[in-house]
Structures are given as C-alpha cells and as structure tokens.
C-alpha cells in the first residue's frame, strides 16, 4: 500500500513524458509538461505524508510538542508551493510562446515547425 501511492506519482510522470515525446501538437506538449509538473508536486506532498497526520498548522492553545508528533511534514508543502509558483511562471511563458509560434507558423503542429535543422 505504501509504495503503491508513490508508483501512482511515477505513473503520472511517465504519462507526462509520453505526452511530451509522442505528441506533435504544441498544446498537447504543454499539457504533458503540466502533467509532469503535477506528478512531481504530488510526489513532494506524498513524501511529507504521515498516516493520520494533522495539518501542519499550530492553532491557539495547542501543545507544540504533541502537535509536532502528529502533524505531517510541513517542509515538502512549502516546497510544493514554490514548485507550483515556478510551474505557473513556466506555463505562462509556454503559452505565450505557443501563441507566438502560431502567429509565425500558422500551425500548432511540431512537424511543420521546423525551420531549424536537427
């Protein structure tokens, strides 16, 4: 059970990579990248997971020690947030580039977007 959930994250990662490699449509490639992003984010959250853990927020009147013994790991959640922000920036850039590519080439098909050799 424990390992299966990690496998799910990796399966998602593989789906994303498949999308990036096999699809020739710019938009689908961007979606593949996003799936990869979310797979990694999920892995990060899972790493901090603890069975029956509570949210890592210390509320008023709570004993800090007892709370720390039951809460999930907050650090991966902070990392996920950072990673989401990076993903947001990347998505905006990718979409902007896709639109520009469409303006220049008149297509979203990567097979036709090849003015460069190689």
């Amino acid at each position, binding site marked *: 059970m424990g390992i299966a959930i990690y496998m799910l994250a990796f399966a998602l*990662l593989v789906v994303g*990579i498949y999308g*990036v490699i096999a699809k020739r449509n*710019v938009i689908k*490639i961007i979606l593949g*990248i996003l799936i*990869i*992003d979310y*797979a*990694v984010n999920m*892995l*990060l959250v899972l*790493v901090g997971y603890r069975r029956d853990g509570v949210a890592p927020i210390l509320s008023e009147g709570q004993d800090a020690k007892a709370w720390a013994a039951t809460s999930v790991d907050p*650090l*991966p959640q902070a*990392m996920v947030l*950072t*990673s989401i922000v*990076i993903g947001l*920036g*990347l998505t905006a*850039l*990718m979409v902007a*580039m*896709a639109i*520009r*590519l469409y303006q*220049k*080439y008149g297509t979203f098909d990567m097979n036709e*977007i*090849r*003015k*460069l050799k*190689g």
Partner: protein
Amino acid sequence: MDALVPLLVVVPFGAAFILVALANLPGLARRRAEGGESAGDLASAPGPRRHRVLSLLACAAVLANFIIALALLRADIGHIYVGGWGDEKSALGIELVCDGLAKLMVVIINMVALVSIIFSWSYMRRFTKVWLFEALFLLMTGAMNGVVLAGDLFNMYVFLEIAAISSYALVAFGCEAEELEAAFKYLILGTVGSAFILVGVTILYSLTGHLNMAKVHELLPAVGQTSPAVLLAAAALLGGLALKAAMVPFHAWLPDAHPSAPAPISAMLSGVLIKAAGIYALARIVFNVLGPTTEYAAILMALGVVSMVVGMFLALGQQDFKRLLAYSSISQAGYIVLAFGVAAHLLATGGDRNIAGLCIFGGLFHLFNHAAFKSLLFLSSGSIEQQTGTRMLKEMGGLTRRMPVTSFCCRIGALSIAGVPPLNGFFSKLIIIIGLALAGQLVLAAIAAGVAVGTLLMYVKVQRYALEGEPSGAAANAREAPAMMCVGLVLLAVVCVVAGLALLPLRDVVFGPAEDVLLGAAGKLTGGLTP
C-alpha cells in the same frame, strides 16, 4: 565580509526590479501620444536618454557584482545562514555556502556577465524594449550566482529554474520564427530536466530528512550508497543535470538555442549557464552530496567522452558560425566532465589523490578558460553578424582588413580554444590530458588529444573562411564594430592571454581552494586519506 555574499544575488535582482520600475515610470518619458493602442504602446517606450540611464544601471549592477566577487576571493567566509536561525548541528535554516568552488564560479559568472553587458550596450540597440533584455539578463546573472552559492538542494533547484526561465525568454527575445522554435524546444527539454532534478531532490529529502547538502552527504551512508532509492535519486539528478549541461545524449536543444539568442546571451548561455546550471551542479551533486563512487564516475566519464567526440564531429561539419560554436561548446564541456569523472574514479577506488587533484584542477581551469574564450568567440560572431549580416562562414572572408579589432580578438579566442601553446586553452587541455594519462586512462587521454586536434582543425576552418582571403560580397561593406563592443572583446582576449601566462599564481589563489572543496568532502567519505 559575510554580509557581502547575499548581495551577489540581491544586487542583480534589485537592479532588475528597479530597472523595470524606472522604465515604466511616467513623467520623464515622452508624452503619451494621442489615439489608439499602438500609439500608446509606442509612447510608453522610454526615450533614448532614459535608455542610456537604464543600461548604465544594469552595467553598474553587474560591475558591482564583479567587484564583490573579486573581493570575496581571498576572504575567509564561514557558514552563512539566511535569517540567522540555523546552526551547523541542525542545519534547519537556508545556508549559503561560499567555499572555494563557489568563489571561483562567482568570479567566472560575473566576469562573463560584465563583458556581455558591456557588449550589449551597442549590440542591443537594434532591438526594442532593451530594458526588458537587461532586466532578464540581470535576473539570469543573479540566479546563477544563487545556484553556485546555494547550500541546500532545493534552493539550488529554485535558482536553476529562475536562471532557466530567464534564459528561455532571452533566447526568444528577437521573436523571429527560428528563435521562437529554438526557445520552445529549449523550454520543453529544460523543463523536463528540471522536473527530474526535483524528483531527485525529493527522494533525497525523503531518505535523509534534510535538504542541506552537507547534511545529506553525512546521512546518506546510513541509508546505504547503493540502495535502490538512492540510485533512483542519483539517476534522476544526473539525468536532469546532464540535460542542463547538454551532455551528448541530451544535447538536442543546445545547437538550436545558443545560436538563436542575441550574441551577448549566447555568450552567457554557452559561457556560463551550461556550466553553472549543469557542470557545476553535477560536480557538486556527485562529489559533495552523493559522494563519488565508481558508478557515478563511469557515468561522468562516459558522458564526457561521448560529448567530446560527438560534439567535435558535429561541429566540424557546420557552416554556420554560431552553430559551430554551439557544437564546440558541447565538445569542450565534455572535456570538463571527463576530467571530473576520472577524478571521481580515482577517489572512489582510492587512487592517488594528487592525480585526482590534478584532474579536477584541469577541469576547473578548462571551465574558466572555456567561459572566457567561448564567450569571446560568441561575442565576436555577434559583431561579425551585425556588420556583415550573415552567419555563414563561406559568405564571410577578408574580415581581418575590414574589422581589425574584432578579428584579432576572434583569432585569439580561436587559437586559445584550439590549444595553441602560449594561450590558456593549451594549458588546460594539457593538464587534463596529463591528468588522464597519470590516472592510467591512456585511451581516454589519447581520445582527448585527438579531439584537441579536431578542435584545431575546426578553428583553422573558421580562420580560413571568415578572417583570411579576399573580402566577399557580405564582408565588403563591413566596418569595425562600435567601441563598446570592441571593449568587451578586448577584455576577454586579455583574460585569455593572461590566464595562460599566470597559470601558477592562479592555481594557488583561485583554483586550489576550489579543488579542495571537491576533494575534501570525498576525503571524509573514504576515511580521510591525507595527501
């Protein structure tokens, strides 16, 4: 002195933000033109006077950074904890590490950045919205400084991403079809690489409960160096970083992305980005986090050799000057990784640490030299392209007479990358080849020597077509590049010449401490073999 270290990141970032704000502040700009949207856009562009102020600000920020980097070289710097709430035991806080290797990298990054921004003073005038270029440039420089200063894995990843995102935007800066295509390819591959790096970082965190590199290194043996989880993390990290370093199976983006960018950015990307984000991080991870084992050493050596050979052969067939330079970057980066790989192999098998040190020294020296001469070549290709309007070698010719300063500097760069004796490239290649031979890797040494000959051929071709002979049609009307561009070129040419001559003092001051960083951690791992 400790307080100066965060400034290396803060100054460029702050300057970038101020630049954006200043460029958009109303008042000094021309009055908003009446009418529709396009006129409004035109009016919001800052006037030429403000352009100069903004460029000056960008130059000043990079210059300040370079001075800080030089000042830090001899300084004795301890642990720096961001926010002041960490200590060595718990390693909870975010740590900035300014050790010998980081100092060396910071000097290289800011040197190339300074020259590139001086060069772009004149070069970028043909583009609109130069302030955007300068802001992105500063972000990229600051982020690269962050990469080399970061003491924990996650911050390294974040800074890698900042540097990468700004470089994607910079490659596409011209917004022509080819540039967009190259940038999109670079963006997709780079993002996949970063995702893998994050996977590796995540797994290492889950295994050790720490992100601090030193701490992870300390705790990894308890997990087991060869446990499947560690190997998975290592595979993800090495794969992702090799992609960033454009090692050969992962190099597809580089020959498109580097030539498509504006010349100062090509110089930054080839000169420092693939090194700071790729090779430096690779070396850090292998030597200081995972600890060198024979498997990692074998991977590094294989990547290095294949990149070296394939890069050279691909470069030989190129007619496009910038593409040739880009392929040659792959090949030269291969040298560095190969030297590191052999050093890691020696350390893992308990070989002579002095020879390992020699290999690392060769690698680091080549890294420095490559930053100098490849940037020089890319910048001179930029000024040649600007003056002749072509990048094809066959259409150039006779530039020695038309553009004396540029072609002289270009020649110095070409001679030094080809490994002609008094220049720096000769010494670094010689040291690497000697190191390989002493390490008992005679085949690798022979291959390295062979690739050096190939590189020589490649640059003889450049000289023959571009600089010698009668001026062709494109070159006939070429004139010398503007003064600021020449200043940049001459500065780098001087670095190329001086670094070759001042090899020994440089080793004591700069490269020795950097070498010890990579060797030292390994010493702890293998039980503190004393040299």
